[in-house]
């Protein structure tokens, strides 16, 4: 079979399977319906197993939209336990009030922990005579108080950032 036409002849001998008789009637019904203004495609009643499941995207989309709307308006709190945990941020305002109301509290310590120091290089500040080196320092400060009578202690901790300009002399 060196001649391609021989192979073409062999291929042409193959007859495609005839479509089901139902197809013709389905097309006829659909075309008839289309003349009446309907655009529905008629599908067979019984289908092979596994092909019946189709996702209704419109329904799914509407469902998701409704769920999203509910979440927005209902403000569902996914971390309800966080409210029960005492945090420094929530304790700080009342701490000041308590400190004012309790004059027995006495400052006992200040701790500064430097956890980052970065030299950002030369800068030329306005009004300065020469260049400066800018050093950025990140720290955490902790202030402590102690009640003289009961011995109770209070501590406040917060992050700070300090920028230092060190003049550079050109020698």
């Amino acid at each position, binding site marked *: 079979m060196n001649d391609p036409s021989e*192979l073409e002849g062999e291929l042409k001998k193959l007859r*495609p399977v005839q479509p089901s008789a139902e197809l013709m009637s389905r097309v006829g019904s659909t075309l008839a319906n289309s003349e009446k203004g309907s655009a529905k495609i008629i599908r067979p009643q019984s289908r092979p197993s596994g092909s019946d499941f189709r996702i209704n995207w419109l329904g799914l989309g509407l469902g998701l939209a409704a769920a999203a709307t509910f979440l927005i308006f209902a403000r569902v709190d996914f971390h309800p336990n966080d409210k029960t945990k005492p945090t420094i941020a929530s304790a700080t305002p009342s701490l000041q009030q308590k400190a004012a109301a309790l004059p027995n509290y006495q400052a006992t310590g200040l701790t500064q922990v430097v956890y980052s120091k970065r030299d950002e290089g030369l800068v030329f500040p306005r009004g300065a005579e020469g260049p400066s080196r800018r050093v950025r320092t990140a720290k955490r400060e902790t202030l402590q108080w102690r009640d003289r009578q009961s011995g109770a202690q209070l501590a406040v901790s917060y992050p700070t950032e300090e920028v230092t300009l060190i003049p550079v002399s050109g020698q």
Partner: protein
Amino acid sequence: MENVATHEDWKVCFSELAPGLVLFARQWVRRPADAEDVVQEAFVRFWRRNLSIKNRALLYAAVRSAALDLIRRDNRRARREVEVFGEAERTVQPQFEQLDDSQRQLVAALDHLPRDQREVLVMKIWNELTFAEIAEALGISQNTAASRYRYGLAALKKTYQPQ
């Protein structure tokens, strides 16, 4: 097929074209029922627009488009179709009638062709489209269509050994 162009009755047109159209659709969707859905949708769409049946390239482009739409509509099934492209469906759901051993071997060789070559062969051999029509339907040049056809035949010759 030549007289198809002169018929205005959809039944005559459809009965002549349907086997080739379903075979063409089955290049993407292997289930015969899905292929028939695709052909129905494409043919109805084509006929409603009152397009001339002479413009067969548009009809085949519509079938191709409907098949791809079906695949996109159901990604899960599409993945399955691609993953098992052929194996079970190829043997369980024959695309051709009454095959002898030699023809079965030829169909198996055809099934193993790359899809772009196989679709050109299907359009040319069993749907009798010209290379110009194939090119228009697939959105490729005529030279590309012709070369895919040649490559397809050459690949078939390599794998198919008639008994």
